[in-house]
């Protein structure tokens, strides 16, 4: 018997974000024991870095991972950032979709899911509350608060189980969480490698990590400069969709569409606005709320045809070649290292990005497989290591397209080489939900290629010089060995005695040296 609609909708309900992600934790990256723990490290470390840098502090992080039982760990993560004001603590750690990073700004984390996701995972697997200590300054006065928190998934809010003021000696946040169903691993996808790579891309930071065996790793600061704070930049006209314009129009406080355009988009002068008005015939003196979709679409179509200056790049802060080299030297102690930072360019016509590449050779560069050192590729986006989905990533694809033989590396796979690539952008085009691989935009592929080839050429120069020194030594030896033998045999053949040959020998040795300084190395 057919049932009526009303009956069927008796069970209709609405979930909170927390409830939703409780049922879908894999959407937060929590899938697999090793990956889950790496994601936790990632969320906490990037939050600490972003916070410290925003506050103008050189980041110092202490991490302590204790093993309680198989797949069961206690993680203590302490930073020296500006801390979190008491009122915001529950929201940062217990409300999903809450955060301060929803602007058009280059930052490491970006979803408002990081800290609260970690708390959710902890609570789901152990039932244990989160322990937070926040030291922060209010009106110049140092305050400290300690809280024990649970997440109420039904409401997507924090429950304070316990709260007290505590004395702190400096600002910063200490987070203590317990996890089950996670696993600490030394593999390329594991937490340790994540820290190591993080330190290469963030040589201004310092991390002390005590691993589950009790061993303490100290990753020292290799550079004393705090990276400049990236500025929020207005979106470039080429980077917006009609939906974005409508969304801006709806939530602006500007009175006219004209002023909305100039104030919300970069490179948008009054002259440009007048041109738009003229060419589209739309009255831009309208109130933003009256903007129709068709009109927004017309404007966006026009954007694609107009010439704009490239987007401002003040929002992009690369690590810088010198800093990258310092990071690589500190961590890999290589025989040779070189880095380069490209000029900013754009993809999709309006999104600015910078590619940085480096190459390290010898020492501890490359990864150890069996008894050999093989090449490794380290991918980063805004200084954050990308550890999964290597195969589909634009960075990998681009590096594979390079003919490494041309740069004196016969077989990239088997060379003791670490190739480093970092993409800097307010809007890195990720391929998938996990944000672990970069989409193959042609401009990105091009920039990765160019920058890698540049560092490869420098490596080649180094390897050549090394080889040439060896070669010269070998050459004079060859002449000194063979000339007497040949003349002895030739004399035997001719049936005569061996003539004086000092002068001829000197001649050929001299000539060979001259040759070497030319370009005879290309065999």
């Amino acid at each position, binding site marked *: 018997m057919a049932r009526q609609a009303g009956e069927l909708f008796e069970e209709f309900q609405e979930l909170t974000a927390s409830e939703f992600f409780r049922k879908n934790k894999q959407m937060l990256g929590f899938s697999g024991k090793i990956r889950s723990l790496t994601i936790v490290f990632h969320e906490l470390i990037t939050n600490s870095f972003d916070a410290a840098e925003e506050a103008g502090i050189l980041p110092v992080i202490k991490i302590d991972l204790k093993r309680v039982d198989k797949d069961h760990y206690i993680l203590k993560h302490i930073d020296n950032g500006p801390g979190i004001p008491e009122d915001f603590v529950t929201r940062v750690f217990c409300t999903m979709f809450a955060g301060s990073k929803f602007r058009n700004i280059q930052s490491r984390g970006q979803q408002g899911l990081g800290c609260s996701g970690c708390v959710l995972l902890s609570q789901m697997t152990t039932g244990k509350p989160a322990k937070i200590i926040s030291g922060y300054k209010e009106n110049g006065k140092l305050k400290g608060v300690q809280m024990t928190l649970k997440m109420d998934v039904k409401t997507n809010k924090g429950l304070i189980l316990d709260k007290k003021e505590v004395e702190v000696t400096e600002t910063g946040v200490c987070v203590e969480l317990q996890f089950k169903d996670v696993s600490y691993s030394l593999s390329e996808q594991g937490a340790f490698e994540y820290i190591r790579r993080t330190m290469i891309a963030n040589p201004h930071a310092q991390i002390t990590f005590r691993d589950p065996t009790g061993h303490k790793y100290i990753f020292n600061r290799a550079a004393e400069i705090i990276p400049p704070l990236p500025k929020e930049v207005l979106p470039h006209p080429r980077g917006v969709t009609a939906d974005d314009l409508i969304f801006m129009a709806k939530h602006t406080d500007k009175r006219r569409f004209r002023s909305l355009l100039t104030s919300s988009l970069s490179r948008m002068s009054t002259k440009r606005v007048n041109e738009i008005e003229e060419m589209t015939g739309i009255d831009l003196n309208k109130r933003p709320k009256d903007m129709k979709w068709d009109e927004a679409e017309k404007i966006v179509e026009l954007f694609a045809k107009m010439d704009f200056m490239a987007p401002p790049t003040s929002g992009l802060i690369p690590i810088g070649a010198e800093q990258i080299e310092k990071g690589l030297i500190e961590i890999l102690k290589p025989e040779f290292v070189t880095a380069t930072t490209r000029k900013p360019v754009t993809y999709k016509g309006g999104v600015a990005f910078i590619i940085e590449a480096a190459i390290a050779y010898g020492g501890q560069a490359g990864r150890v497989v069996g008894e050999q050192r093989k090449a490794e590729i380290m991918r980063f986006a805004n200084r954050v290591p990308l550890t999964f989905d290597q195969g589909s990533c634009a960075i990998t694809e681009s590096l594979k397209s390079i003919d490494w033989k041309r740069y004196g590396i016969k077989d990239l796979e088997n060379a003791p080489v670490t190739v480093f690539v970092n993409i800097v952008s307010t809007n890195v085009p990720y391929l998938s939900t996990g944000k672990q691989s970069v989409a193959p935009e042609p401009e990105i592929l091009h920039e990765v290629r160019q920058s890698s080839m540049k560092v490869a050429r420098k490596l080649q120069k180094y390897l050549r010089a090394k080889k040439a020194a060896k070669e010269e030594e070998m*050459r004079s030896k*060859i*002449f000194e060995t*063979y*000339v007497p*033998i*040949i*003349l002895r*045999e*030739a*004399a*035997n*053949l*001719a*049936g*005569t005695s*061996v*003539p*004086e*040959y000092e*002068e*001829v020998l000197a*001649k*050929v040795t001299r*000539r*060979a040296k001259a*040759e070497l300084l030319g370009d005879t190395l290309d065999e």
Partner: protein
Amino acid sequence: MNKKEIAANKLTSLGTSIIEDVTKNKIPNIQVPSRGTSNIVFDEQKRHYVLGDRYGKRSLGNVKQIKKIGQMVYMANFCKDLVQREKTATLRELYYVSEGWDVEFGDQQESNIIGEDLEVTLGMTREDLGLMPEEDGASVYGKITLQEDDIEINALRSGKSGYTISPTIDEVEFLDHDVKRVIAVETMGMFHRMVQEEAYKKFDTLIVGLKGQAARATRRFLKRVNEELKLPVYICNDGDPWGFHIAMVIISGSAKLAHVNHQLATPNAKFLGVTASDIINYDLPTDPLKDIDVLRLKELLKDPRYRDETWKTEIKKMLKIGKKAEQQSFSKYGLEYVVDTYFPEKLESMEN
């Protein structure tokens, strides 16, 4: 001067020129004729490949060339010793002998190349220098008498497998013969068939069993019977690109041996079969051409040695029918058919 004296003198001069240069404080060098493809040209007059006149200079002052000069001089000494003692050695033996030298060969291939360098530089064949190939030559059956050293050999009385052409064929003299022609066949199967069916009597012919691609000694033998004894030479191979080419190398020489083709090629020799036309006319059992066969046939079409119209027609015909056939496939009509019918018909058409 006989061949041996010429060889010894040429070898000596190689040493002399080096020593003289040094005495004049010049850096010695050796001019080695280039064996690269661009220096191998088909000589329409001589009807075989010859080396062009491009040379490579090998200088004592070049780090990459000096070792090769050393190897050449050492090898020249070894050959001079062979020639003077009237001995021969195989290339393999030479390679092992070189173990005692102060310049090493990486492998047999490397020593073979230096051997060829020496051949072209001096304009002598390796046999002249006392270096012999490993392989024996073809089998010969029929009414011919030869002299090797002081021994007389009758190729009709050397057993059913006939007389084996030795690598030192140049030192063999032709004493006497009673044949009108020479028929060389690719396989020993066909050779024995012809002996069994007494083809040597029926056609007044020498039978030569090539055993596949003809050895240098075999090619030298065929050239000599053709030129010294004025005997027409016919070649009968499998009807496929490889059979064609075995015949052609006998007739016009190979590119690889351009520097000695004047001693090896027999431009007057004729290909008797199996042709594509034979396949059709005699309705022979066939196999389909493989991809590699087709490729090879197309290469032959571009080869100057096959510029002759008859060749071109036959190659195209084979490509068109897409089939190849072996010599022995005439057995379809009985074992005797090839001798009783095929050879008489073909010889008739070629000699008249």
